[in-house]
């Protein structure tokens, strides 16, 4: 589970206030205008942006003071999830050992994660020999190996076409379900948010961001609050 209780995160002049509760194993979408603080929220949970007040609890642990590597979360960025000079298998292997001295058993786990994400046989390639979708699959494979209770997705599929995006979302859900991983995904696409179990709206007002809980996404989109309705516009 992911629980934010009166959390205030500050990045430069920007302030984000958030209250949010996502039960274990749920898939929650976070939607809202650019610059509203969606990415800041993920960076704060992952330990990259300072939390100045309130609590961040993941899988029952208060994350205050924990280094990024010690947190029970994996974060996928929109871009630059792979080191360009390491092979795909090495990039995935980093999830098991940062110094890449993998045992035979660990190497086999890397192969299995590649297979699970549809990258069978591509382990020897360099990232720039992969398509954009394949690169994000490799990043997902590494997150699967790390097997942290929470998976944070910062629009990692935004650059993909609609078909590929749907495919990647299905892959994430298929991988998260058996592991009971809690997923929090930032997205610009209302369509993607509708398919999630839960959805939260990140409002932006006067250079500050505000997240006020998550609701079942069908309910949220059936009766959007004024800010979300304005964001969705006539086509919403």
């Amino acid at each position, binding site marked *: 589970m992911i629980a934010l209780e009166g959390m205030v995160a500050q990045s430069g002049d920007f302030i984000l206030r958030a209250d949010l509760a996502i039960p274990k194993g749920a898939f929650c979408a976070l939607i809202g205008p650019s610059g509203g603080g969606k990415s800041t929220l993920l960076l704060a949970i992952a330990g990259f942006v300072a939390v100045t007040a309130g609590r961040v609890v993941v899988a029952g642990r208060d994350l205050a003071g924990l*280094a990024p590597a010690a947190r029970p979360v994996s974060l996928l960025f929109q871009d630059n*999830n792979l080191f360009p000079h390491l092979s795909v298998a090495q990039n995935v292997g*980093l999830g098991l050992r940062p110094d890449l001295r993998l045992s035979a058993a660990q190497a086999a786990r890397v192969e299995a994660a590649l297979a699970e994400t549809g990258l069978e046989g591509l382990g020897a390639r360099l990232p720039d020999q992969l398509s954009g979708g394949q690169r994000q699959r490799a990043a997902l494979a590494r997150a699967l190996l790390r097997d942290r209770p929470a998976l944070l997705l910062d629009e990692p599929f935004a650059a993909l076409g609609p078909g590929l995006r749907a495919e990647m979302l299905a892959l994430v859900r298929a991988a998260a379900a058996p592991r009971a991983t809690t997923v929090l995904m930032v997205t610009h696409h209302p369509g993607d948010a509708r398919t999630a179990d839960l959805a939260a709206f990140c409002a932006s007002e006067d250079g500050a961001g505000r997240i006020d809980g998550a609701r079942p996404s069908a309910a949220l989109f059936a009766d959007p609050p004024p800010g979300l309705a304005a964001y969705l516009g006539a086509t919403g």
Partner: protein
Amino acid sequence: MNGATALSRWPRAGVAVPGAAALLLVAALTLGAVAVVALRAEGPGALSAADWRAGWFTVRQAALSALISVALAIPLARALSRRRFAGRDALARLMGAPFLLPSIVAILGVSAVWGRSGWVSDALASVGLPRLDIYGMPGVLLAHVFFNLPLAARLLLQAYAAIPPERWRLAAQLGVQGWALFRLVEGPALRGAIPGALAVIFAVCATSFAVALALGGGPRATTLELAIFEAAVHEFDLARAALLALLQFALCAVAALAALALAAPLATAPGLARLTERWDGASPAARIGDALAIALGCLFLGLPLLAVLLKGAPGVIGLPDAVWAAAGRSLAVALVSAALTLALALPLAALAAALPRRAALWAEAAGLLPIAASPFVLGIALFIALRPWADPAALALPLTALVNAVMAAPFALRILLPPLRQAQAEHGRLADSLGLRGLARARILYLPRLRAPLGFALGLAAALSAGDLGVIALFSRPEAPTLPLLMHLLATSRQLDAALGAALMLIGLSFGLFWLFDRWGRG
């Protein structure tokens, strides 16, 4: 890239004619100068064993200077890239200083710290150890590392700044630390920057003159540039001077081409690059190592500057009138030189930005020719060419300004070209579709982006010219010296207090000029 020229392919006459003229002038003043000197020589010259020794020494000292500067710059850049501390901005400005510091002043400062009667020797003597003797290779290396360590550190810091922030976050999330982090994140970025830094510093050090003159110490530590000066001025053996110049040209052309191919242009802002938030280096060992690197870097760069300031301050009071007159001459030379630099570099940059890709590369390479040229050969060629018509000594100051401008043009070109290309690439098509041409195009499309680079380039050219002790030594009559020449004369005639006072004034002149122009550029 060449959106505006995709249809017409070749630049319009308003760009092509001034650009081609500047290009021809630069080529004539570099390659042509060698030809003039060679033709004037009586019979084919021959290089002596001493000349070859000078060549070998030039290569060795330049290579060692480059290696040491870059090796020391790695821990310094690493520490600066991940630490925030009070005075970080001041340190950033300090790192920009040696490049602008007149070499003759820097030599004085380095000697005041490391020389026989310098601070380090005093400290050694006080505990009964022998004093240092830096003349020869050690002195040349010390001075060159003093000049180039900050340059190397800034190039490496740019490489650090180019690492995407996600990569640091990713490494922090995966728990990658220490050596593994260096190999995974920093190594690949540095590998891209180090060859360029090595090549640039090699090229700068290979044409070193003042450092070798003051600290080289005898025939065993002579650079090619110094050998050219001695062959031409002391022995008036023009044939040998021309041959030496060709040798130096070949050597520096290789280094300069390598630098052009490998090095990224130095960012306009002389400060530190954008600060990325970092999660590494939290261990006590890393903290101590970084603190040590920064402290030693500050001392190594700061102490010679401090020595000149402390020792020079008393000398400023009661400076002879001759110093003020010399400062006036240097100011005039610097301003004219800065204007001439722009008159060469701006048309060249405009031409290179408008040409199709391959031709642009040739134009840029030709514009960089002066890096490999010897200012003395250029000076001698001008001397030979002008003597039938005018007394070169009477033209000493204009000729010095011209030679300084030609030597500064490559730097200005490297500063102006990237923003011109960027403006062209990003808004060139928009400007075309709006029918912006000629002056309107310059005012709306180019000038807003060029103001800061123009200020930086003008400041650099003026400061370099004000502090240059080189070609003026060829022409000048002793009764009308520039400030660096007067300072050199004072220092060699043992009037050290007056020399240090003049040094302080020279620092004020160089840095003041740079500051004024750069400030104008920043609006």
